[in-house]
C-alpha cells in the first residue's frame, strides 16, 4: 500500500510534480501512465526517498520510506536496470544488497534461479544484455520477498519474450496479493497488464480509475450496428455499409431496433483501445507545454 499526498517537487524553475495525490492498492497491477517528462520517474524517486519532496508526503504501509525497518523486505523497486556497477558480478551485486538488510546469503542464489540468471551469476554485469539486466534488477527486488513492488518502464527495450515474462511476473505478483506499481508509456503493454491506472501529465493527476473505466470514458467507445436506422446518438455510415452509433449504449440501440421492428444482423460494442483513450486524455499535457492545465478534474479520483 502506497499513499501519496500533495506531493510537489521542483528542479530549479521546473515543477516536476505538482500537488500529486493517489493511493496504490494491493492485489492488483497499477499502471502509471504519462507522456515523457510527466513526472513518473520523479514520483517514484520521491516514493523511495532518492529525491526529497518540496511538499507533501509519501508513505509505504503507513511509514516514510527511510523509516522502514528493513526496506527490502517491504518494497522492491527497479527504477533503472542499468543502475548497477558493471564491474561487479551478478552474484556480488545481489550479495551486497542482501547484506544491507541482513538477508541470508542463500537468498541470492534463490533469486538468481527465479529470474534464470544462475548460469551467469559470476559474470560481470557490464556484459549483460538489457533483458538480462532487467532480470538482475528484478532479482534484486525479490531478495526481501516484499509486499510492494515498483517498476519504472520495465519493458523498455525488451524483446517479445522478455516483455511476456515481465507481464506474467507482474500479474503473478499481484495475484499473490502484492502491491504492484508499474510505469510505462507503452499503452498496448499496459492494456495487457494493468488493472488500475494512475495517469499524470506535466506533474499533475489526470486520472485515477480502473482500466475499464478509463477506456469507457473515451469518446472512442461506440456501438456498431448493422442494418438499423438510428434514433438518438450520433450515427455515421462506415465504409462497409454498417452504421456507427456514438453516445448511446448497446442495449439502447437494440431496444430501439426492436421497437421499430428492425432486424439486426450484428450489434457490436466497440471499445476504445487504451492507447486511444490515453491520447485523448493526455493531449493537453503533451501539446501545450507552456500552458498550465487548470481546473481539470481528475477522472475517478475518489481517493
Amino acid at each position, binding site marked *: 500500500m502506497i499513499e501519496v499526498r500533495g506531493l510537489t517537487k521542483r528542479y530549479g524553475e521546473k515543477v516536476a510534480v505538482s500537488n500529486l495525490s493517489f493511493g496504490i492498492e494491493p492485489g492488483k497491477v497499477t499502471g502509471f501512465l504519462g507522456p515523457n517528462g510527466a513526472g513518473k520517474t520523479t514520483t517514484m*524517486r520521491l516514493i*523511495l*526517498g*532518492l*529525491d*526529497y519532496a518540496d511538499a507533501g508526503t509519501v508513505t509505504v504501509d503507513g511509514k516514510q*520510506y*527511510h523509516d*522502514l*525497518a*528493513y*526496506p527490502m*523486505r517491504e518494497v522492491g*523497486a527497479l*527504477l*533503472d536496470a*542499468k*543502475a*548497477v*556497477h*558493471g*564491474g*561487479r*558480478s551478478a552474484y*556480488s*551485486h545481489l*550479495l*551486497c*544488497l542482501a*547484506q*544491507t*538488510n*541482513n*538477508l541470508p546469503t*542463500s*537468498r541470492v542464489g*534463490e*533469486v538468481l*534461479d*527465479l*529470474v*534464470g*540468471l*544462475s*548460469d*551467469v551469476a559470476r559474470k560481470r554485469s557490464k556484459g*549483460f*544484455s538489457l533483458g*538480462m539486466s532487467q*532480470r538482475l534488477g528484478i532479482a*534484486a527486488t525479490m531478495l526481501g*520477498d516484499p509486499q510492494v513492488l515498483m517498476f519504472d518502464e520495465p519493458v523498455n527495450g525488451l524483446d517479445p*519474450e522478455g516483455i511476456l*515474462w515481465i507481464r*506474467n*511476473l507482474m*500479474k*503473478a*505478483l499481484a495475484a*499473490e496479493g502484492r502491491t504492484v506499481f508499474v510505469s510505462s508509456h507503452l499503452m498496448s503493454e499496459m492494456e495487457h497488464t494493468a488493472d488500475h491506472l494512475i495517469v499524470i501529465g506535466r506533474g499533475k493527476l489526470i486520472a485515477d480509475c480502473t482500466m475499464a473505466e478509463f477506456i469507457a470514458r473515451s469518446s472512442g467507445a461506440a456501438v456498431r450496428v448493422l442494418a438499423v436506422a438510428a434514433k438518438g446518438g450520433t450515427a455515421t455510415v462506415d465504409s462497409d455499409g454498417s452504421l456507427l452509433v456514438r453516445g448511446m449504449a448497446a442495449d439502447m440501440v437494440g431496444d430501439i431496433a426492436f421497437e421499430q421492428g428492425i432486424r439486426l444482423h450484428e450489434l457490436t460494442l466497440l471499445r476504445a483501445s487504451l492507447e486511444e483513450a490515453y491520447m485523448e486524455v493526455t493531449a493537453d499535457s503533451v501539446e501545450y507545454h507552456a500552458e498550465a492545465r487548470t481546473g481539470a478534474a481528475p477522472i475517478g479520483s475518489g481517493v
Partner: protein
Amino acid sequence: MATTTAPGSAPALRLSALPPATGRAGLGGAIRSEFTKLRSVRSTYWTIGALFVVSVGIAAIAGFGIASNLHNNPWNKAGTDAAQASLIAFFELGQLIIAVLGALVITSEYSTGMIRTSLTAMPRRGVVYAAKLIVFGGVALVVSLVTSFISFFVGQAAMSGSGVSASLFHSVTIPRGVNMSPPPGGPNSNLPPVYHFIGTITISPGTVLTAIIGSALFVTAVALIAFGLGAIIRHTAGAITSVIGLMFVVPIIVQVALPDTWRWDIMRFFPDAAGRVLSVTTGQTAEHLWSAWPQFGVTLIYAAVLVGVGGYLFRKRDA
C-alpha cells in the same frame, strides 16, 4: 546469453520463507555490504596492487642506488636518511594512487547509477556513508601500514652493508656532517678527495617506527581527503583532479609565487607538508614546518572537514 526460464513462462515464485525480521537494518549490515562492494570490483585490486608495486619497487631501486653511491662516494654517508629514502615513493606517489581508490569508492556509485540501488536498499544515508568511511578507511589503513613496512624492509635490505641502513631492532649511528678537501696531487688527480666526518646522529628503533607508521597514517589521511572530495564532487575525474591540486599543485604554486619571507609560514597550513616531516629519521626537518605530529594534525583537519562536508552533502542532496 541463454537463460534457464522457458520463453514467457510465468515465473515460479517459490522462494523460501525468510527468517523473521527483528530490529532494523543498521550499520553492521551496511559495513558487510560495503566490504563486499569493495572486494568485488577490479579497481580495488588494481589500485592496491599499483600502490604496492610502486612503493616497494621504488624503495628497492632507491636502496640499490644509495648503496652504489655510498660505495663509490663514502663521504655521502653523512646525514643520509635511509628510512626516508625507502618511504618517499610510498608517501609521495602512493598517496595519489590510494586517493584514486578513495575517490572511486564514492564516485563509482554515481557514475554507474549504483547509488540509486544502494540507497533504495538502505535509505538511511548517514549509515551508508559511515559504513563506506569505516570500510574504506580501515582497508586504506591496513594496506598503507603493510606497504609502508614492506617498503622499509625491502629498501633497507637493498642498502645493507652500506653503513647507513636503518633498523627497527637496534640503534644505528651515522655521521652528521663531512669536511671535504680536494684530492691530493692536484685538480686532475684520480685519487678520491680527503674527507673526515663531523659528529654523529643516532637513529633509534623508535624513531624509525614513527617514520614508518607516520607515513602510513599520512597516506591514509590523504585517502580520506580523496574520499571526502569524492562525496562532494561526485565525479571521478573531478575528485582525483582536486586531490592532485590540493596535494601537489597548490603547494607548488605557493612555493613559487610567494616571497621567501613568508611562504614557509603558509606551507605549514597545507595538507601535504606532514609527509615530509613524518618520514624524517635524521632529525633534519625543514625549519619552517611544525614538528611531525602537529603537522600531521593539519592533514587530519583537512581530512575531517572534507569527509564531514561530504557526509553532509551525501545526506542532503538528491541522489
